[in-house]
């Protein structure tokens, strides 16, 4: 069948209401059967085991301690991310230097790096003799709660900065100008007017940083100070990792993490907009002084120093062992697949294979869901409910989600581990794609669709010639996020499979010493992962730019 013939056939088919109904139904059923229901049922299947934990007071105390540690760490990290990220976002959005574009790009580095790379880099920088500790003659920060805090701070920092830069650039500066003409010095104007108007973005960035901290597993395991099944710092993901995903304790902790995380996010979503920032009280003399050029300069210097020395430098430190591995023979070993490297390449291929499959499935089955939500095809209330539900995998810790999915799928022994891995990764990454696409489709005026239909376009042609071209950038961006997130995912992978190892999981084993690997091996393994991730990013960006230029 020629392409034209295929399009005609699809047009004919898409005109039938029954076909559209089936398409949307499949996407909804897919979401419920593969993403939402399995974790819930998984917990229910193992519910009878949960009681076991209460028979072991020390295990119970340890489990509760891990849960408190997860939420406490996430809360504290998110707060300091917002406090530290906001001045940098302000500096980038309002600054006038030609170097700001470069700074803007550098801010994204901790976000783009695979988290295992970030974790190893932080470990080397802060806790190993070859890092900053060499300047002090002693280990500056040992693996434990402080290193975990720094790690979580660093990988959530770009999220806060990105969200707030966007908000500041969209913000109508006329409100700040009005405030200044009424006598408010810049700091007072920013505090009493700008921040209040940007409050929704502050809340969003807090939620995103909170979710990220709560969910992070692979890198946390690297820096938590695990020695012989004991950790210097044990949060929920570390606890599940150490006790084994099928243990009663893991079921209990998974359940509590999912339930409490969902509750916290619901509360923040409802109460966040009602949060009142202190705008009535002013300290004119004090705030006028702080608005002065000297103080503003000092603030910028401190902000930049913090970014460079606490965020950027530790993130990039992994480049050193990677470079030395190239020169000391490890590179040749790696290319020849000698020893542990055979396993590495297999893991890497598995990671990218799973990433590609997950991206394809999410794209084809996520698109109809995105249309359903954006165009409210099932009514406003149902679309809103779906809109809320698709966020659930975003806000629960991935290891807990993976564990609960594993509890469910273990009842179906015929399903191969590769498929389980794909299911888990689909669940983790699905919201990213649907969110990106539904927002993009919402931005397209209904007038364009109506004009197309009046001119005779059938639903498939309308989608192909109007919706798709206008959302192609979001489609690629969404697919890219899904792919990189899947390749990077550790927690859910650890929870859902036992024999298969993706590249990030293998690297965690190398760092922990489960597999004997030298520092050069680890550095190079991480280096390959980083370079390939950047290469994929670059290719995708070039493809998108190329398609944009054609228009």
């Amino acid at each position, binding site marked *: 069948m020629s392409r034209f013939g295929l399009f005609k056939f699809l047009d004919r088919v898409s005109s039938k209401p029954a076909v559209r109904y089936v398409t949307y139904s499949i996407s909804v059923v897919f979401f419920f059967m593969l993403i939402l229901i399995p974790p819930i049922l998984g917990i229910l299947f193992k519910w009878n085991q949960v009681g076991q934990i209460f028979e072991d007071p020390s295990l119970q105390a340890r489990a509760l301690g891990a849960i408190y540690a997860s939420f406490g760490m996430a809360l504290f990290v998110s707060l300091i991310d917002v406090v530290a990220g906001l001045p940098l976002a302000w500096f980038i959005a309002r600054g006038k230097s030609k170097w700001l574009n470069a700074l803007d790009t550098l801010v994204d580095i901790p976000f783009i790096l695979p988290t295992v790379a970030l974790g190893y880099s932080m470990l080397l920088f802060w806790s190993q003799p070859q890092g900053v500790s060499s300047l002090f003659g002693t280990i500056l920060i040992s693996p434990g709660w402080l290193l975990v805090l720094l790690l979580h701070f660093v990988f959530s920092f770009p999220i806060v900065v990105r969200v707030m830069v966007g908000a500041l650039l969209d913000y*109508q500066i*006329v*409100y700040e*100008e*009005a*405030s*200044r*003409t*009424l*006598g*408010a*010095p*810049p700091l*007072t104007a920013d505090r*009493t*007017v700008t921040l*209040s*108007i940007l*409050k929704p973005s502050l809340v969003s960035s807090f939620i995103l940083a909170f979710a990220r901290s709560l969910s992070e597993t692979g890198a946390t395991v690297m820096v938590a100070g695990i020695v012989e099944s004991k950790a210097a710092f044990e949060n929920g993901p570390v606890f599940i990792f150490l006790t084994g995903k099928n243990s009663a304790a893991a079921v209990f902790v998974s359940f509590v993490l999912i339930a409490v995380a969902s509750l916290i996010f619901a509360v923040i979503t409802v109460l966040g907009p009602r949060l009142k920032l202190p*705008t*009535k009280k*002013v300290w*004119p*003399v004090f705030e006028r002084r702080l608005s002065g050029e000297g103080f503003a300069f000092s603030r910028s210097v401190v902000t930049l120093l913090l970014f460079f020395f606490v965020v950027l430098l530790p993130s990039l430190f992994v480049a050193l062992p990677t470079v030395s591995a190239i020169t000391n023979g490890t590179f040749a070993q790696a290319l020849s697949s000698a020893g542990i490297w055979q396993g590495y390449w297999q893991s890497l291929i598995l990671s990218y294979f799973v990433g590609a499959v997950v991206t394809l499935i999410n794209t084809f089955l996520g698109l109809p869901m995105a249309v359903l939500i954006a165009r409210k095809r099932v009514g406003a209330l149902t679309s809103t409910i779906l809109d809320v539900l698709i966020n659930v995998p975003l806000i629960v810790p991935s290891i807990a989600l993976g564990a609960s999915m594993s509890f469910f799928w273990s009842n179906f022994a015929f399903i191969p581990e590769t498929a389980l891995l794909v299911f888990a990764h689909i669940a983790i990454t699905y919201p990213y794609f649907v969110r990106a696409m539904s927002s993009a489709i919402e931005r397209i005026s209904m007038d364009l669709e109506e004009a197309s239909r009046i001119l005779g376009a059938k639903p498939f042609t309308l989608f192909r010639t109007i919706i798709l071209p206008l959302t192609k950038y979001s489609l690629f961006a969404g697919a890219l996020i899904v792919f990189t997130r899947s390749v990077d995912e550790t927690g859910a992978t650890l929870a859902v499979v036992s024999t298969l190892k993706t590249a990030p999981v293998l690297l965690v084993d190398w760092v922990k010493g489960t597999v004997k690997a030298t520092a050069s091996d680890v550095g190079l393994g991480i280096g390959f992962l980083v370079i390939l991730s950047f290469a994929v990013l670059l290719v995708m960006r070039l493809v998108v730019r190329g398609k944009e230029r054609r228009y």
Partner: protein
Amino acid sequence: MPEVKVENVSKKFGQGKIVAVDNVSLQIRDKEYFSLLGPSGCGKTTLLRLIAGLIQPDEGNIYIEGKLVNNVPPEDRGIGFVFQTYALFPHMDVWDNVTYGPRVKAWNTQQSNKIGREMLEMVRLYERAKALPHELSGGMMQRVAVARALSAGAKLLLLDEPLGALDAKIRLELRYEIRRLVKDLELTAIHVTHDQAEAMAISDRIAIMRKGRVLQVGTPQELYMNPQEIFVANFVGEANFLEGYVESVNETGAVLELRGRLHVKVLDKNKNLGEKVVLAVRPEAFEVWKGHRKVQNALSGQVERFRFEGTNVRYEIRLENQDLVVVTRPTLAVEWLDVGEKVTVSFPPDKSFVFTYPSKGLREELIAE
């Protein structure tokens, strides 16, 4: 002493490629209601923002009450500013918006409350003190914006197209209300607008701006009755423009030869013999009769179009030299003419203006933007 003095001020954007304000000098007197009038993009808002301190001049100086304020931030200039979009703080109710200025200047609560109440009562919105901006109509938001701008005791009020977003009827009502407020409070006001009727109705003096420059400053009557440039004659009111040459000059005036060898007498004797000129006559300056009439400055023509405009009727008359003139006559004053009717039009010599023909052409000179 002038309240505001702008001295050779220039402002450029786009790395110097766009000259928004070009060597402007102005003096605005104490307690004067002064308007900056011009088409979109002429630099009037930029000039206002320079006076407010929201942007800094590239060249020149700005003085407020005799003090150089180039490096003084907006919060220290003692101004009130009404924005085109009102810029009411969306997260604060009317009361908090209006008392914002006194609060950030650390006035005590009693003072803040007193001035807040006074301002809201002045604009008749005290009973809406608890309303949020999105609950107000456009006219209400504009009044709250004015009340807020005045609440911190500013003596200089800057208004950036404050009525631009309102419908015609509300605009008409509010323009006089703003002027009344300003005069009652003995403030100095600088009002930016592109609406010449608005500027003429409420201003003590007006500066006409075009492409970053001030073309003429004067009272509304001066600008209307004595425009110094073709653009001013066209922008303030309406005018017919006829091209011609100076045929003769004597003590009482000059004779111009228009196209088609038509001759008219004018009082302007400052042009040179043979010089190419543009004659401007306002539509209401013309007289028109049916048929042929022997009068001074008589021009024969035919009615091409007719429009009833309420208080006036408007005729488009094609002269015998093919120039088209617009003539407006009071509806009730004269007998109406029919389309196609042959007529004579004339104008008194003292009700015309003569300009040197512009080097870039008449069309270029008349373009508003």
